[in-house]
């Protein structure tokens, strides 16, 4: 029998600061999360088990997610299993194939039996009540090849946060096995669409990355498009058709407070936050041209970044804030350009023959730029390196558009509209194009924008 290591006072302090961060980030929704390690003894070397970039012989890691003990356990395990099933890198095994029912989640599983179904990891856990009545969740991750526990945590939180705990456990396991950051404890803003296409009603909406916990942030009377998450606050920037010219607005999703971004003489659109959350970059339409501007949210100072007769739009900052990628038709057709964050010296990076490129988005890891590519009537979603090399199309067809990055830079969401009288749905795919999954939304959905990791 293993002993649970209780957190030292210093760990408590660290937990508390994490708790404060979580509370701030969730605006009171998340009423506290205390995490403590369940790893026995000294932490094992954090070597990863999977090279996610391994090429043709890539095999996802088979993992058995057992039902966590306790009344709420199976529901939690279900959320975790669903997460892993969309992770591409982990492959949750069919519970009917499990060789044993785990009755004691603290005891090592029978490694020989789990090896028979080719499980590489077994996840066990329990959900119960802490002495103060809060929800207490523990998990242990077991390496079947050695029979050893390789990861374990305990989380104490408000019972209303059960889904978030499941996502946090998923992230911890995902990170331990892949050596990459997690992405499950995150949210997505998107546009909920309903009604006939000629009079489509659009609502600003937010959901968890798995489609759960949908909240509508606008009523549908006003046309709203292209919401983008702030990386550092509860603000969402988007374009809305209010009174007068359509404009970029910022909405605080906790307070409901909304304001126009800047006092520009014309339509502003295609907003995106800078990586530090202090600026919004966007297009301003004047006459027949559209150029790029930034507005500093504190000083309200606006800066013009491009000055052309062309259409410059869809700007996106590099994660270090030093460069901006955008699309422009200055050369005749829509192509992708990179320039310094202060403007000037734009350099074209997209070159595939007969193709038009649009909606570039810089990966939060900095390694790729995702885009929409139009070629021969088809709309593909792809990625390329910031110098334009290494282009890879993740999905192709009619009509994919508008990629957004998961906070760990390993996945994109985008929307696909088959055309005609139907409407768009949101999909998620890994950056290597190995797997693609629908993100369930009640109605039609478009313009997804992935927010930062919450925890």
């Amino acid at each position: 029998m293993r002993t649970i290591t209780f957190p030292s006072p210093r760990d408590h302090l660290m937990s508390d600061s994490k708790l404060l961060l979580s509370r701030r980030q969730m605006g009171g929704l998340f009423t506290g999360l205390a995490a403590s390690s369940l790893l026995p003894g000294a932490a094992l070397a954090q070597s990863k088990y999977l090279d996610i970039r391994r090429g043709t012989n890539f095999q996802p890691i088979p993992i058995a997610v057992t039902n966590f003990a306790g009344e709420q356990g199976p529901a939690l395990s279900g959320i975790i299993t669903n997460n892993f099933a969309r992770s591409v890198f982990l492959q949750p095994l069919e519970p009917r194939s499990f060789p044993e029912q785990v009755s004691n989640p603290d005891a090592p599983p029978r490694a020989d039996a789990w090896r028979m179904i080719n499980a590489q990891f077994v996840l066990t856990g329990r959900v119960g009540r802490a002495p103060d009545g809060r929800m207490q969740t523990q998990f242990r991750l077991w390496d079947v090849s050695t029979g050893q526990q390789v990861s374990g945590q305990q989380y104490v939180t408000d019972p209303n946060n059960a889904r978030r705990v499941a996502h946090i456990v998923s992230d911890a396991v995902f990170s331990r096995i892949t050596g990459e950051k997690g992405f499950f404890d995150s949210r997505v803003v998107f546009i909920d669409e309903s009604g006939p296409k000629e009079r489509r009603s659009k609502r600003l909406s937010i959901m968890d990355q798995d489609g759960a916990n949908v909240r509508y942030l606008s009523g549908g009377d006003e046309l709203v498009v292209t919401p983008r998450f702030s990386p550092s606050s509860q603000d969402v920037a988007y374009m809305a058709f209010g009174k007068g010219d359509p404009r970029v607005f910022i909405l605080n999703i906790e307070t409901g407070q909304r304001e126009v971004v800047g006092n520009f003489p014309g339509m502003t659109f295609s907003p995106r936050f800078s990586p530090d959350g202090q600026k919004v970059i966007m297009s301003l339409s004047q006459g027949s041209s559209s150029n790029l501007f930034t507005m500093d949210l504190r000083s309200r100072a606006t800066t013009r970044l491009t000055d052309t007769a062309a259409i410059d739009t869809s700007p996106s900052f590099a994660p270090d804030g030093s460069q901006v990628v955008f699309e422009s038709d200055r050369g005749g057709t829509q192509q992708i350009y990179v320039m310094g964050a202060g403007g000037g010296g734009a350099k074209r990076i997209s070159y595939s023959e007969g193709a038009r490129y649009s909606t570039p988005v810089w990966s939060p890891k900095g390694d790729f730029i995702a885009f929409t590519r139009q070629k021969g009537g088809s709309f593909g979603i792809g990625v390329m390196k910031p110098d334009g090399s290494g282009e890879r199309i993740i999905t192709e067809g009619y009509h994919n558009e508008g990629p957004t990055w998961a906070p760990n830079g390993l996945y994109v969401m985008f929307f696909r509209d088959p055309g005609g009288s139907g409407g768009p749905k949101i999909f998620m795919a890994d950056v290597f194009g190995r797997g693609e999954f629908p993100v369930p939304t009640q109605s039609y959905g478009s313009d997804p924008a992935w927010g930062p990791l919450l925890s």
Partner: protein
Amino acid sequence: MTFMISARTLKIVAALSIGLAMGACSKNPNEDGSGSGFGSGLGAGAATPGSQQDFVVNVGDRIFFESDSTELTSTAQATLDKQARWLQQYGQYSITVEGHADERGTREYNFALGARRAEAAKSYLAARGIPASRLRTISYGKERPVAVCNDISCWSQNRRAVTVLGGANS
């Protein structure tokens, strides 16, 4: 408010367009009741000269563009010439030129493309003597198609600039 007027106008115009597309062009579109959505001075009946219906039916409120183009075709120029004459005769209307794109483009680009189309029509009208103070533009990008299908017959109707009359004396 501006948007609501446009939406209603679009609805009526959509009904008219569908009628035209089906080759069932009614001699008097007002009789089909499509005008009932208007709140002010547009009841059923013949298109009164100088009325919004007169403009839509007898002048033509919209021009169409080639794919990804903002060039005014000769047909478009002819329509805008008629619009300019009518608008000079009836000087009480403010004018909003709406620019639209078909769905075969990305959302952001289509807002800019719609703006360019609206601007092209606006500039043409201004050059034909309509004071700039009466003219404003708005782009709906690909957000408000009038024809919904998956082929060129619809796309070509959606690539348009629509001249929408604002309230009289406004």
